[in-house]
């Protein structure tokens, strides 16, 4: 499903026709272009609204990114504000809170990779071993569900469950004689709760991709393994896991490519000043500096930095994944 490869391989003749149009057009070419438009205008009419939408809502903000290099004032506007060069970036990299946010982003992503990434794989491997079809079906239906629940509700559930007075977690700790803990105000508890919540919400849904990969394994491999007297445990390690390894690798590369993307909506909902120390990520910092404190230019500079790093990571991930599969991710 790559854009580059699809369009270049299947439609090279069309592209050739398009590219020749860029050359100085003789009257014949211009006529041909007009003729083409007259025949195919409906196609361009269909495309137009979507293209305008992309320009207005996604590309125009990219033009607005220039405020990262300007002393932006609302009254002068984006174009009218004076340039200040790299001043905002110097401020950023001298700002302890911003540096902490970068550190937290990378740490949370790394922990998520360590604990959150294997979870759906293990789940898919286990689902594959469940024989009872309706039991499996019911379990799947339930574990996919949290993916569809909004982060506000997820946060509401977490806040309620970890509440120091009424929360179930402290109630259960009370049964064992432990003192109540106000989890959400303690920096050392933020990451375990955040990552645990992520696993609870996404492990089930994430297993779909791996289950599909497992379904694609050639059944004759298992049949001959049975003939050789292999048991299910051995088949899992010797057949299933090696067979889905390409999928695992690609999903791993995607995750690494998205390392700057911590689901900051959930962070905003779960953190508080007491836990900024371990919880504040780049996007939440940008949100507070820019949208809450109105330091648009500085926050935009932080956003640009984040976007460039993310872009490089995603491109690297895409290049890497080309090596593992015949096509790229896109």
């Amino acid at each position, binding site marked *: *499903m790559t854009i580059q490869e699809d369009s270049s391989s299947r439609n090279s003749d069309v592209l050739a026709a398009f590219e020749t149009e860029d050359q100085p057009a003789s009257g014949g070419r211009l006529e041909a272009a007009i003729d083409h438009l007259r025949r195919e205008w409906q*196609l361009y009419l269909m495309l137009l609204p979507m293209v305008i939408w992309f320009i207005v809502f996604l590309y125009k903000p990219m033009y607005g990114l220039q405020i990262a290099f300007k002393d932006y004032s609302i009254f002068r506007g984006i174009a009218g504000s004076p340039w200040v060069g790299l001043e905002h970036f110097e401020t950023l990299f001298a700002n302890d809170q911003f540096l902490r946010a970068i550190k937290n982003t990378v740490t949370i992503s790394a922990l998520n990779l360590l604990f959150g990434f294997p979870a759906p794989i293990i789940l898919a491997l286990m689902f594959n071993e469940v024989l009872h079809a309706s039991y499996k079906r019911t379990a799947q239906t339930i574990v996919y569900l949290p993916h569809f629940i909004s982060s506000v509700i997820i946060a509401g559930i977490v806040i309620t469950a970890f509440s120091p007075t009424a929360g179930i977690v402290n109630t259960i700790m009370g049964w064992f004689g432990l003192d109540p803990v106000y989890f959400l105000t303690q920096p050392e508890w933020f990451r375990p709760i955040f990552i645990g919540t992520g696993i609870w919400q996404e492990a089930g849904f994430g297993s779909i991709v791996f289950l599909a990969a497992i379904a694609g394994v050639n059944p004759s491999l298992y049949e001959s393994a049975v003939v050789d007297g292999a048991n299910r445990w051995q088949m899992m390690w010797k057949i299933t896991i090696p067979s889905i390894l390409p999928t695992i690798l690609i999903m791993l590369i995607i995750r690494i490519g998205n390392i700057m993307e911590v689901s900051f909506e959930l962070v905003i909902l779960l953190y508080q000043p007491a836990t900024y120390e371990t919880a504040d990520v780049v996007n939440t910092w940008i949100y507070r500096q820019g949208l809450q404190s109105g330091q648009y230019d500085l926050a935009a500079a932080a956003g640009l930095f984040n976007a460039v790093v993310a872009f490089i990571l995603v491109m690297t991930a895409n290049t890497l994944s080309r090596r593992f599969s015949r*096509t790229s991710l896109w």
Partner: protein
Amino acid sequence: MNWNLYSRGDKFFAIVVSILIGMFTVATLYPFIYIAALSFSSGFAAQAGKVVLTPIDATLEAYGYILKDPQFWVSYRNTFIYTIGGTVMSLAFIIPGAYALSRPQLKGRRFFNLFIAFTMWFNAGLIPFFLNMRDLNLLDSMFGIILAFAVNAFNVILLRNFFEAIPKSFEEAARMDGANDFQVLWKVFVPLSKPAIATITLFCIVSRWNGFFWAMVLLQSEDKIPLQVFLRHTISNLSDDDEFAIVQTAAGFSAETVTAAIIVCSIIPVLIVYPFIQKYFEKGILLGGVKE
């Protein structure tokens, strides 16, 4: 695999795995049961941490408290408007756009595809997007929310790929009957692409129903906020509102039970549609996911 062919070791393995799956499933489900139980419990029981699995001192006071709040109904209505309006808007942009991109006769196809895919890799970020919305005069606008989040590259590419895979002969047959592009799209491609369109519709509905962050940032008027923002306001207000703490002691509900009741009310529509959408998202995630 046949159970009877399993060795004793394999049977043991299968049973252990089934138990582990069962435990994970229960762990997934439990928080919902806990919240439901809490929503039907009395405020005293909730605050004393007595609620574990079933309602304690069962009461409907918490539901009474929110259902009487006109703001709850306003934001519920708004969420329906955002979900339906937003999904219709998305489809209106994406279906014709993806069709055009899937046609080989479209010139500049490579450019347009890259133009759209680039937005998946590079994003201007929160601040420029917000300032752009302000410049467009779309702050605190319901229409602004519906329009500004109508399209995303992933859905366009998913549908375009689906359209590209439709055999040429279908289009040619329609052309022979004198159909133009709009007719080919509407009478041939849309009916043939029901699974892909259903998948995109599902993605749109879910993201609209759950949408929170930008609604919180962009909307100021109480009569425009969706349910998720109302829920957030309620949760954060209740937990540090001393006056509420005094009132509720007499009334039989608490911040916890009210929060739980709102959560239940906003999950119910998701639970109702969930069984219908399940068959689509399993296919859909694979349509748009990794393809080798």
